[in-house]
């Protein structure tokens, strides 16, 4: 149950299949799949000396190379491949498709392969981006892949089939034939569950796995049930970088950072290559800063010892350590720049103050107190518009059913403080998307008497860190599930019911997962041996991309004016 390893193994299998000089041919969808888990140098060590795109029509003819194609069998890619095979650029072709190839597509390819250059046609089910060993994403974002079709509860046809294929490939790459559970309130989750089940029955041969003690569970959730998690400011490294700067396929764009050095315009964050990142991925900013300080110190002592080369022995040591040292120095600069930028943004947008209120809104029932703070922040000129909107959204979601709901006055206050009209519209969109009636669980634990009492108690106890009190709703769901106590009535099985405590759980979040949830899952995996959880979603959201999706989708359905809603602040960075 390690998605990164699963994808890597597929790729190693491809490049090890043939010896000799090779070129790797990718398409626009398989490129991120590979770049998330592989580096150029790893490919080089397997004699893969060139990597190119199949849609690049200006490739040189190099018939002495063998060509490994890793492609997604979409109609566009098949068309490109047909053209390629008509006039082959390379000697032999080994075709690997990331998903099931249609019979008609096979026939079409066979027809054009007059030179008989194709040696292998295989299906390797690496059809998703593996981000962490227990976190994957299908990279489906608005506007290229809109989630909703005719209504806010129906799938967009193309996106649906992509999700279906992606999720099937996750199951196949992990060799799991699951029992499917889904969120009952979500029409989309039910449809996906049924279709997955149908496909598994259809592809009986592929899903013929060794029997397990208890069937693995595929749990299909809907973002709608927890709109709060993606709205919160994040303080752990990976989540924070994504929230403030955006991680795209393991890359972070720093070109907007003032005074950034040219080589740091775009940096790569890779768990495999970067041990510092791997170690600190889930640490909060405080611990991270301490670690980065010691990292820099380590670097300084190394530099000093490298400075005084007096003897041959010194030189030898220097030479031996040099490659590692260079790597270290590059890495130190990278992380220092990154953390520096994070701190700058936190300072600039007064995120500590904002986050404290966010957490309070998300976790505790303290309406009067929070309202006062909220009003203060809205009128403050230091707080960014987006933060204000997020805070009001949190308030509106939590106190939607409260008697003295002050959302209206807050909206007026937003108007008053000059927040743009279109952003304010988002509050209505959000309530329509994920208001209390749309959610199935008692997210804020304030609906029943007992629940609210519990939540009040929690508030009294106090937490050690006010910025990271919030636990995603997923935590509760998973906890119940692991204990075997998750209710059938709200998370029904598609067919068959098992009371066994699950051992392997695969989660798919319609509408996108977050790094906060990924961190929770990673911690759960580390602390509970015997349970393995893998989380994934249509995409990985930060607050900006999440609000964009809600805005764009619901703007459409509310029959709103023809003008396009505004994009949110840093969202320009969250391109695909």
């Amino acid at each position, binding site marked *: 149950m390690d998605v990164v390893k*699963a994808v890597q*193994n*597929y790729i190693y*299998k491809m490049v090890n299949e043939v010896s000799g*000089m090779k070129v790797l041919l990718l398409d626009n969808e398989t490129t991120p799949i590979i770049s998330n888990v592989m580096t150029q*140098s790893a490919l*080089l*060590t397997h*004699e893969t*000396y*060139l990597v190119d795109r199949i849609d690049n029509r200006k490739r*040189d003819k*190099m*018939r*002495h190379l063998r060509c490994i194609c890793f492609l997604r069998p979409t109609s566009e890619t098949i068309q490109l491949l047909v053209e390629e095979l008509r*006039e*082959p650029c390379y*000697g032999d072709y080994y075709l690997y498709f990331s998903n*099931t*190839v249609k*019979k008609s597509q*096979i*026939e079409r390819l*066979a*027809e054009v*392969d*007059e*030179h*008989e250059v*194709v040696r*292998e*046609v*295989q*299906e*390797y*089910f690496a059809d998703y981006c593996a981000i962490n060993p227990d976190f994957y994403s299908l990279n489906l974002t608005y506007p290229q892949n809109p989630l909703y079709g005719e209504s806010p509860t129906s799938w967009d046809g193309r996106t649906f089939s992509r999700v279906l294929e992606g999720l099937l490939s996750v199951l*196949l*790459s992990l*060799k799991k034939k699951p029992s499917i559970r889904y969120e009952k309130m979500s029409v989309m989750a039910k449809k996906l569950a049924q279709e997955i089940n149908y496909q598994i029955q259809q592809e009986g041969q*592929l899903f013929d796995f*060794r*029997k*397990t*003690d208890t069937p693995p569970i595929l749990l299909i959730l809907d973002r709608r049930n927890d709109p709060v998690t993606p709205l919160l400011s994040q303080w752990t490294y990976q989540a924070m970088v994504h929230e403030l700067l955006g991680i795209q396929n393991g890359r972070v764009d720093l070109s907007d950072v003032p005074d950034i050095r040219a080589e740091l315009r775009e940096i790569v964050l890779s768990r495999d290559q970067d041990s510092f990142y791997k170690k600190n991925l889930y640490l909060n900013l405080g611990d991270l800063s301490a670690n980065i300080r010691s990292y820099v110190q380590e670097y300084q002592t190394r530099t000093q010892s490298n400075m005084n080369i007096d003897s*041959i022995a010194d*030189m*030898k040591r*220097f*030479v*031996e350590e*040099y*490659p590692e040292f260079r790597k270290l120095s590059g890495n130190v600069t990278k992380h220092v720049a990154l953390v520096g930028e994070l701190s700058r943004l936190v300072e600039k947008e007064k995120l500590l103050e904002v986050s404290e209120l966010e957490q309070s809104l998300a976790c505790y029932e303290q309406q009067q107190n929070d309202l006062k703070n909220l009003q203060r922040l809205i009128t403050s000129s230091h707080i960014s518009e987006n933060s204000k909107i997020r805070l009001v959204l949190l308030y509106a979601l939590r106190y939607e059913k409260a008697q003295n709901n002050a959302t209206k006055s807050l909206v007026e206050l937003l108007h008053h403080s000059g927040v743009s009209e279109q952003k304010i519209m988002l509050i209505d969109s959000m309530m329509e998307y994920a208001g209390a009636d749309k959610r199935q669980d008692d997210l804020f634990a304030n609906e029943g008497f007992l629940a609210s009492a519990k939540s009040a108690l929690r508030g009294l106890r106090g937490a050690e860190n006010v910025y990271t009190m919030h636990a995603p709703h997923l935590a509760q769901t998973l906890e119940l599930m692991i*204990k075997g106590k998750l209710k059938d009535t709200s998370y029904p099985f598609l067919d068959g019911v098992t*009371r*066994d*405590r699950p051992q392997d759980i695969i989660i798919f979040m319609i509408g996108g997962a977050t790094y906060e949830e990924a961190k929770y899952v990673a911690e759960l995996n580390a*602390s*509970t*041996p*015997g349970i393995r959880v893998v989380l994934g979603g249509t995409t990985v959201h930060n607050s900006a991309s999440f609000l964009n999706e809600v805005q764009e989708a619901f703007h459409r359905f509310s029959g709103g004016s023809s003008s396009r809603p505004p994009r949110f602040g840093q969202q320009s960075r969250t391109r695909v």
Partner: protein
Amino acid sequence: MSFVQEAYFYPNTSFPSDSLPGGNSQRESLLYDDSIKLECPICNEAMISLAQLNQHLDDVHSEESNAKKDIILSWFKNAQSTLMKPLSKAKLASLPNQLSQTVTQTVINKLSELDVLDEGSELVTRSHWQRESENDQCSHSNCGKTVNLRNGKYNCRNRQASHDPVNGYWSRVCNNCYKSRDGYLDDQGVVSSRTEEFKQNRVLCTEKAHLEGNRLEKRLEKLAKVYATKIKTGNSAQSGLAPPLTLKHRRRASEQSIVKWEDDASVTHCPLCNSPFGKITNRKHHCRLCGRIIDEKCSSKVSLHTNDYTENVEHDSVGQVRVCKECRNAVFRRREYIEEVSKTPQVVMLYQKLTKIRSAIDQTLPKFQEMLVMLKSQEIVNQTHADYQVAARTRKELLEYFTQFDAINKKINSLATNSETQRRLHSNIYLAANHLPSIKMQGKAHPGATVAEGRTLPKPCEEEADSTGDLLAVIATRRNRSLSVSSSKSTRSTKSTKGEKLRQQLGVLEEQEKLVEEYISKATRKRKIEDVQTLKASLDELRQEIDIKKQQLVELS
């Protein structure tokens, strides 16, 4: 943290499978059955209730040793808890503090004669259990905690049973057994091959294409024959009176006998590009292979050869005919493709050599390392010792390989290319090749291996020599290389070859001197004053070294 897991296990014993109770995958029902069937853990006498068992234990087994009593007591507690809890909770109760510290023990006890039933099944016996004592410790490698009744003590059931998800029972096993179940740590995803299907389809399609190609090829041969004979008659006719026009006409007749030409009047547009024909601008042409009418753009002239098409020489040609794009493709594409594939560019040959040398290095290097270890452990310093000489030979061999490897690699990198992609290919091969041995070398801090290290490690640095920041490193590595070579060589080489080696070293040093001078001029141009200083310092050292070598040479001769 819990080190206990539950999984389906089935005993390895030779019990016939029909002795299994029905519906055996239902854990609850089994638990229920077992807990009702009470038996004395010592003499296996059937009991009706716990109270009776308690009485029985007191009466019959009271003289048992203390240790055994302990076991009985703890078993009794287990049984009790199993009975007392509602069925669905039975399992939870047996995992009292799942998230805190529960521990397991897995060591086999050979002394125990007890044959007590497992709470989970009749068949997984306890005969292999580690005997309980006062101070048991968790045998999980990372834990080692003392186990007692409070944090829960378990025995791993896996010793006598194998994992069987179909017929097995829920059994408690240790973490290691849990993880070593078949397929649990399988990271190889499903693979589905469509190659056969593809090839079958391809045979169907290409057969047709090949037939068509062969047919056209035949026609081409016929055309060539026509042209060849006509030219002869044409030559003789030219001496007479026949005008060239009639020659063309006669040819046309025989061309048309090979394939029927399309009627001029029936075609108004080119069938391939769909552009209209005109009288002057876009004239009609006939393809000599299929007879269709096409325009100028969509056709080309091909040379005819009477002999086989293997020779591509122009003067062999007996004439040219016009053929359409499609026919040309059908006849020539395959042929051209095969021709091109069979041509091996220089980089391929070099690369093959490179791979060969690399595999040779891969074979020799570990051997050499072994020898060094052996030499060191036996403290052989005598240069005439047989083992020492073998080692020296191997080292020489290795060095030779490295030099060759280096040379070929450099050659690949400097190959002349006419395209960006090719250049990228070459430099990538170069990079990867440099990377490979250096990875293998790392972690071998053995003094004897310095020669090898000196040769391979600096390469990645040379790569980046252009960025002046790395100059220092380059210099240092180069220096190091030469020095380590010289130091190891001077101690090991025999006198007869000493002079030769000195000369070689001198050559290397002089080469480096030149390089450093180059770097200095580069750095001064870029106004990197600190770099220049360090470079100069190393240049001085190099020159000193050269002087010493020269002196030694003089002394020798």
